[in-house]
């Protein structure tokens, strides 16, 4: 699946103007979007999901044009088949875990899960090892459990692309490492390409096949640069190399934490 993005947007706020000009292509299954906070990563993902309308440009996913300012094409978010796992997961607090995961499969007037939907949801809950939480509300869940619910909800509708905004930042470090590997396993299982925002170099080292680096609203580096990183020997050395590479790439911005 190929994603081609070339969008511009001028944002005003708090007395300053922010110019976003994001231009990149993803060819691999896992692409990491890296950069300091406020560099335009999240806004770009919102544009891909259809939650922010760029002033100009074009977004193409596979053979579908999601957005094209010149041709007046702007698919609404609900028709893009682009799933989005938000940083705070944005689960529906008034629905149970099962109802959250069933949301993409339901109609607005339906209160109870139809048998076919129930079956499909239970399969997802099993995959994510949260079947025992089916009747709980999100307010009772731990951070890791919430993330599993958010991932199950995002994937149940078989999206063409999965966007993740800092997926591990709310988790403790031990869980983080485990979830990285789980995410890669999920990618295989659901055959869905991932576009992951992070400013954690460890995420880059574990996940990235493709990398896009943002600085001040511009894409400063993309793609093949990662080959260099993977040439280095595995283990901590890779992390160090990535860290060094990335802090060079975003030089002028703040250091990655």
């Amino acid at each position, binding site marked *: 699946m190929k994603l081609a993005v070339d969008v511009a947007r001028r944002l005003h706020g708090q007395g300053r103007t922010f110019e976003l000009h994001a231009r990149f292509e993803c060819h691999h299954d896992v692409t990491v979007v890296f950069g300091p906070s406020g560099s335009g990563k999240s806004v770009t993902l919102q544009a891909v999901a259809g939650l922010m309308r760029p002033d100009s440009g074009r977004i193409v996913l596979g053979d579908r044009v999601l957005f094209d300012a010149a041709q007046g094409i702007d698919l609404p*978010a609900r028709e*893009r088949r682009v799933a989005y796992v938000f940083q*705070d997961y*944005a689960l*529906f607090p008034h629905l149970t875990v099962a109802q959250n995961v069933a*949301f*993409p499969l339901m*109609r607005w007037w339906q209160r109870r899960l139809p048998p076919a939907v129930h079956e499909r949801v239970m399969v997802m809950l099993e995959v994510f090892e949260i079947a025992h939480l089916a009747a709980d509300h999100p307010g009772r869940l731990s951070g890791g459990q919430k993330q599993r619910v958010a991932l199950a909800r995002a994937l149940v509708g078989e999206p063409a692309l999965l966007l993740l905004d800092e997926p591990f930042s709310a988790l403790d470090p031990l869980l983080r490492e485990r979830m990285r590997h789980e995410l890669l396993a999920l990618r295989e299982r659901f055959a869905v390409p991932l576009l992951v925002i992070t400013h954690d170099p460890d995420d880059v080292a574990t996940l990235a096949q493709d990398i896009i680096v943002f600085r001040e609203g511009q894409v400063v580096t993309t793609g093949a640069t990662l080959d260099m990183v993977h040439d280095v020997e595995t283990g901590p050395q890779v992390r160090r190399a990535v860290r060094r590479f990335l802090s060079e790439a975003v030089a002028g911005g703040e250091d990655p934490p």
Partner: protein
Amino acid sequence: MLPLEGGAAAVWVPLALSLKVAGWATALVLVAGVAVAWFVARTRFRGREVFDAVMTLPMVMPPTVLGYYLLVLIGRRGWIGEWLDATFGIVLIFTWQGAVIAAAVVAFPLVYKAARAAFEEVPRQTENAARVLGASEWRVFANVTLPLAWRGILSGTMLAFARALGEFGATLMVAGSIPGKTQTLSIAVYEAVQAGQDGVANFLVITTSVVCIAVLVGSGRLLTARHP
């Protein structure tokens, strides 16, 4: 039981009329208040703050001033009233329907304010999550925004009901005080006191107080309860 001048009807007729008027006014205000609140909470337009102030105005203006505005609008020779009379033969002035409109205008800001605050507390991110998951704008409203805001809306609606039940000034100006037709509870209290019918006045006052306390307690409980 206190001896009631004019018999039990002197109490039950205005009470029943008040409940009818307040019920209709609350229903009107619930629909209008939620619609306007959603619009203001979710869109940005020029003059939004002025519009908000106008919508809130009935809360701070003297009811007699509102009554006067209503006469200008829906009176027999009012802008809308004249047209209604000429086109449909509808006359609102000195009818219980007129009392409904007066009560609705006075109670409107209570629903509007509560609903706007409730809508603004629903995180945009949660609504966006629903959009990305394939929900139409109607479904976002019906399945996400409204369920997350309904406590606040219902609490405002209960206050609006209590306010409509007690409406006096605007109702008197628009609908008058016709016993059995437009003489609501609070107007009946005034008339009873003027006529020296203390028994009726006492009974009406106690009934009103009990209903209002029940509504306030109920509305307070709704606001403090939280999702599990």
